[in-house]
């Protein structure tokens, strides 16, 4: 197995301080939200109770945090151990992504002081999709911290504890594959519940499947993007050969996704609606064009080996998956005449703050804990 090492280097760089400022601004508005309520900070209303915090921080955020899930699926389920070097850093982004998604929910939930009722068994509503997502995401956050624990234990040389954890970690890894499969599809089911309020371009019985497939592809894409950025920022060699192999999986998933997506819209006779003009139709076309563009780039093996195109395709894919989620949760959602929503500036700033915290946390963990693999031996093997 590969060896992981902290990257090292100065922690408080200029970028870090900039991120810190953004995080502080975000925290200021979080404090304001808790003092004066949601209405003081957000543009959320009775028509749009879910805004950018759910659409971005939770739905897109957890999809971007699917790296850990996708890699676990590859390595542990399909037994492709050559990808194991990518697992730990993927787990790190997943851990941050999911934890902060959980935090966002607590900021977004109106009566947050009631939130603990989710874990009180006799209040459980076993028929609720939202309950499933809440419980699943909550558990998965725990699982991710346990899965990532070896990096921390290595750092502090807690070998006895590490050895004991290693004996049981398989259970957490199994949960780590099961739970995202459940809730990433349920995130789609949630908007199925919206009924006629959701435009038929997005509302389909395939929503859970489409959410799951796109989440897995986004998981791969985020691993690629993260690896490329890490090699640029931390002056590490490129992991292109490994990434190229990983990228080979994506086109197949994308093909399944696009066939289901387009045929579903087509068979329901909605193509005229898709080309009818207007915001919904335009964004529907853009969303699928982005997916198609990513497919077009990645379908050629030569492109998979070109880091620039690989990176561009992965970014396109993330944009596509992100837009798909935004469209399903906000753009395609019309709760009735006259309701409108666009996030307010403080609302956006809280989201930016959370992203900043995520980036700072990532930098700190990567620089101080053994997360990224030592790459030279692998490159030599290739």
């Amino acid at each position, binding site marked *: 197995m590969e060896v992981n090492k902290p990257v090292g280097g100065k922690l408080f760089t200029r970028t870090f301080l900039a991120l810190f400022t953004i995080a502080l601004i975000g925290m200021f508005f979080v404090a304001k939200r808790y003092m004066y309520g949601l209405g003081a900070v957000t543009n959320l*209303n009775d*028509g749009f109770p879910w805004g950018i915090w759910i659409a971005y921080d939770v739905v897109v955020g957890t999809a971007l945090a699917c790296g850990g899930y996708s890699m676990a699926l590859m390595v542990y389920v399909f037994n492709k151990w050559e990808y194991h070097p990518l697992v730990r850093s993927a787990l790190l982004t997943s851990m941050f992504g999911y934890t902060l998604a959980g935090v966002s929910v607590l900021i977004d939930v109106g009566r947050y002081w009631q939130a603990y009722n989710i874990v009180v068994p006799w209040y459980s509503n076993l028929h609720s999709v939202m309950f499933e997502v809440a419980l699943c995401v909550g558990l998965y956050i725990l699982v991710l911290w346990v899965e990532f624990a070896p990096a921390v234990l290595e750092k502090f040389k807690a070998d006895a504890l590490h050895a004991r954890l290693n004996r049981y970690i398989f259970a957490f890894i199994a949960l780590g594959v099961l739970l995202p499969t459940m809730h990433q599809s349920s995130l789609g089911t949630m908007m199925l519940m919206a009924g006629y309020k959701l435009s038929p371009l997005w509302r389909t019985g395939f929503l859970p499947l489409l959410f799951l497939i796109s989440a897995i592809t986004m998981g791969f894409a985020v691993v690629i993007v993260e690896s490329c950025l890490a090699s640029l920022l931390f002056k590490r060699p490129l992991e292109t050969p490994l990434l190229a192999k990983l990228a080979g999986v994506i086109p197949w998933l994308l093909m399944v996704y696009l066939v289901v997506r387009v045929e579903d819209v087509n068979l329901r006779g909605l193509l005229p609606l898709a080309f009818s003009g207007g915001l919904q139709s335009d964004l529907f076309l853009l969303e699928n064009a982005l997916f198609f563009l990513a497919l077009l780039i990645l379908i050629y093996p030569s492109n998979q080996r070109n880091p620039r195109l690989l990176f561009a395709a992965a970014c396109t894919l993330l944009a596509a998956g992100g837009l798909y989620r935004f469209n399903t949760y906000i753009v395609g959602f019309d709760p009735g005449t*006259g309701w409108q929503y666009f996030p307010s500036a403080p609302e956006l700033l809280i989201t930016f703050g959370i992203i900043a915290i995520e980036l700072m946390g990532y930098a700190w963990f990567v620089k101080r804990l053994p997360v990224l693999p030592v790459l030279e031996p692998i490159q030599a093997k290739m």
Partner: protein
Amino acid sequence: MSNWATDTTPSGRVSRRDFLKVCTAAAVYMGLPASMGVQLAAAATRTQRPPVIWLSGQGCTGCTESLLRPGHPSLEHLILNQIALDYNETLNTGAGHQAEEYKKKSIQDNLNRFILVVEGAIPTKDGGIYCQVAGQNFVDIVKETAAKAAAVIAIGSCASWGGIPSAAPNPTGAKGVPEVLAGTTVVTIPGCPPNAYNFLSTVLYFLTFNKLPELDDKGRPKFAYGRLIHENCERRPHFDAGRFAKEFGDEGHRLGYCLYKLGCKGPMTYANCPSILFSDAGSGAWPVGTGHPCFGCTEQGVGFTIPLHTQAEVKQVTPAAGQAPIETKRGNGVSIGAAALAGAAVGVAAGAGMMAAKNLGAKDRESGKPAKEA
């Protein structure tokens, strides 16, 4: 006498079935379980009917008349079968010395067992000479009789605290029974006129459980006077929405809006009128139901005291300042700041992505060369 409660002769008497229904309804009024109806029925049909002495002071006899209103039981059933109304100046068959003699005899026979009902206020000025019955001051009659009674019920607002006779300047020094009988527990059934069911239910409760129902600080049974009229008013939604009739006959009044601005005292008056309406007079039969503001007849210090059209002091929530808007605001549009921020974020992400792609290409060429050479 046959047992009327089980008698089903077609002579207009109440059937057993109907009687049980009455008792069950009475139990429900008082907030007792419906099964208590059977116990109430048993209590009301004891061979020995509970004797009642009904004294009338400074009143209009409206309280006695209000007993005509209930249909279950009707007045004749009440006084002939349910209770033994041994003395009531309006309904006595005998008169003069005969009636007074019978009263004395009944009191003597039922010492500490009869129920004393007082209707009307009691004048106390100048020794109470302003109301006399059979040459005796009414205030003395009440004191004398109350000392021998099992329970004292003051029916109507006059008996409860003085009512109209006590209104300023109160020339006769009229007082209510609780004031005159200070130290004795007096159940008050205020109202002008009082709801006969509140009276009947109290009597039945006493007969059944041999104790008085729970009373508030003014001696009113809590089952009937525990809540503000405002709390159960059928026009309450109009109040909450800020829809008020502003004068009699205006559009709001015709549409049945809230009468608060016409001086309705519902927000400061405790009574069960909106829940049980006035006896069996029919649907909507209570002041507010007919379009007239409540004047607070059951509330000392409100009825006969605060002018009819003076706006009430609202005890719970203040009314909306204006009409509720028909169109609610449905979310904010895009603000310039938010648009700028969102645009900047997308721009930064796109820019960073492009820079990274460019640098990746350069890096690949650098790292690619030695790799190829090797």
